[in-house]
């Protein structure tokens, strides 16, 4: 097995706000190997986007970042901006959530791609433009030479996202971080954009971090999955481990709330309640208030992320052993009524 290209170790991020310190990320660790796709799943506010912004070194100045992020062994946290500039867009590229706002409205898209090329390569403007046209062609944009001169507003959402992906792959990066790349798009174009991402990843042989709240997206694309809740990783494992033998009630709940198209008619099982505020989190497991398996220890001790069952499968739950072989409806169904009543 090759050395990891990206190692994140015990990453913490907090933001001072008017009401106190928001601890957005509380100890995230993962490793990414060449060509591997890691899916990060969680509700909004679980810290998955903040984690990737920390990797890119693009958090606002007020953020306090701890822990370690290493690219091929080189520490990025606290590295000088000059150094980060070389890595950003060059070695680690990013695709943002909303293609409608990630492109500058006043420049033609070709120029914006060429700009990324020239930021990392000493080439002429003409050569960079030529590369931009090639990239647009690779992203299946029709008539790329003419389209390169068009402005972002002349493209549809799905096409803009492909322009963004073209920009991300411009410098053959080792890592592509895609932050909810399909969330802002129409369902009909989501598949195209995922396809474009896979094309870009395959062309550059990069590793990819695919951030999403949609387990369906992850199932089709990821090799491994990291589930986050309230700023913490709560389960990490191979995509099959996560789908077929989840060991954390939250993961189980996420799977239970996913509609199935394979003909088995089951009731969807909702997770009641909402994620906790990240201000002054009380002790204990942050999922406890919504958890059907909650016990006394859950209110006092926050469980560690520990190995369960198969190799490379980690979960953070005091009762992960009890979850072996249980299905969402076993855990959630009979209690969902009570807790729904309790929450209202």
């Amino acid at each position, binding site marked *: 097995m090759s050395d990891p290209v990206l190692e994140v170790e015990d990453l913490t991020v907090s933001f001072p706000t008017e009401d106190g310190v928001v601890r957005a990320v509380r100890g995230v660790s993962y490793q990414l190997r060449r060509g591997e796709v890691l899916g990060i799943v969680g509700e909004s506010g679980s810290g998955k986007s903040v984690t990737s912004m920390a990797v*890119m070194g693009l958090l606002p100045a007020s953020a306090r970042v701890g822990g370690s992020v290493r690219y091929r062994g080189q520490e990025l946290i606290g590295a000088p901006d000059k150094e980060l500039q070389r890595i950003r867009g060059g070695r680690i*590229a*990013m695709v*943002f959530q909303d293609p409608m706002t990630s492109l500058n*409205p*006043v420049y033609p898209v070709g120029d914006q791609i060429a700009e990324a090329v020239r*930021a990392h390569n000493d080439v002429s403007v003409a050569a960079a433009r030529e590369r931009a046209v090639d990239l647009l062609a690779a992203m299946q944009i029709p008539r790329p030479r003419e389209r390169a001169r068009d*402005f972002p*507003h002349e493209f549809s959402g799905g096409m803009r996202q492909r322009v963004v992906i073209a920009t991300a792959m411009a410098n053959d990066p080792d890592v592509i971080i895609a932050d909810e790349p399909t969330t802002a798009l129409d369902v009909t174009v989501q598949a195209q954009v995922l396809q474009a991402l896979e094309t870009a990843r395959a062309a550059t042989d990069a590793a990819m971090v695919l951030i999403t709240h949609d387990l369906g997206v992850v199932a089709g694309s990821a090799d491994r999955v990291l589930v986050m809740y309230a700023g913490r990783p709560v389960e990490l494992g191979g995509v099959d481990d996560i789908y077929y033998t989840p060991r954390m009630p939250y993961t189980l709940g996420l799977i239970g709330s996913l509609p199935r198209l394979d003909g088995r008619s089951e009731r969807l099982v909702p997770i009641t309640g909402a994620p906790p505020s990240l201000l002054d989190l009380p002790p204990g497991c942050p999922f406890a208030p919504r958890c059907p398996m909650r016990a006394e220890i859950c209110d006092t001790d926050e469980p560690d992320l520990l190995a369960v069952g198969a190799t490379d499968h980690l979960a953070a739950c005091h009762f992960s052993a009890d979850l072996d072989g249980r299905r969402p409806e076993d855990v959630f169904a009979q209690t969902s009524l009570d807790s729904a009543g309790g929450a209202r």
Partner: protein
Amino acid sequence: MLTYTIRRLLVSIPVIIASTFIVFLLVTLSGDPLANLKGRNPPPSPQVVAVEAERLHLDQPILQRYWTWITGVVHADFGPSVRTNVDIGHEIVTRFGVTLRLIAVAVVLALLLAVFVGVVSAVKQYSGIDYGFTFAAFLFLSMPSFWFAVLLKQGGISLNNLVGGQVVSTIGERSVIVEGGTWAHLTDAAGHLVLPTISLALISFGAWSRFQRASMLDVLNSDYVLFARAKGLSRRRVVVKHALRTALIPMVTITALDFAALISGAVITETVFQWRGLGDFLVSSVNERDAYAVLAWLLVVAVAVIVFNLIADLLYALLDPRIRYE
């Protein structure tokens, strides 16, 4: 774009007519323009008064008087002035030139200063520099222009006394007699421009720098600036090429709109520094109840407002590829 321009100009004609009509009514109803004449000692004969009344079209009903005026304007005839020695059309053109010179220089100065201060403030938000610039902007925003102008004038006089010569002029737009060639005329004009320009520029600077700061902050917090950073561009390049370029678009509009407003705003500056510009023309015309002169002034201001509104919109289309007029 041309059709759009023409349509915009046509649409604004009714606005000009309505606006001049209201002001015409106000001036006409505000008092008797012959009061000065009638108040003379010894009183003028009724014939003299009647001749003067006829010259000023006072014998016509009000609506007809307005009609006479507006049809005259089409033929570049701005109507008779109460002051017999004044040709309104000629006077307004000369004075417009004087005021325009003052405003143009002041706007350029204010704009450069405001953009610089606004950008630095936004990039260094909540730093000591930002707080300093914010206070300065609010101070100039709260400064009555006449007080500030008199203050500057006083400062100019002290400076001249200190140096023992005429460094900056504090009265008028040019010296009565200038000896020497073009160069002497130019330096003379420049010397007269310094103080009024500063006083006019700093007042606009207050509001504009706040606007530039807000617009810059908006852009700096946008996704595409973050994405530009994610591409690996340097902070400087992102601020200048991506943020400033886009943040200037609304600023251009504000400047164009305020440019017209400054024509009436310059009244105070002109009064303090005794420039014979449009402002001084308005004040004296009002004092004389010179209805046609006030209307001529209003016409110039209204046309300027409309033209600059149009320029603002056209510039917007030029700078922002998302905007297209057909």
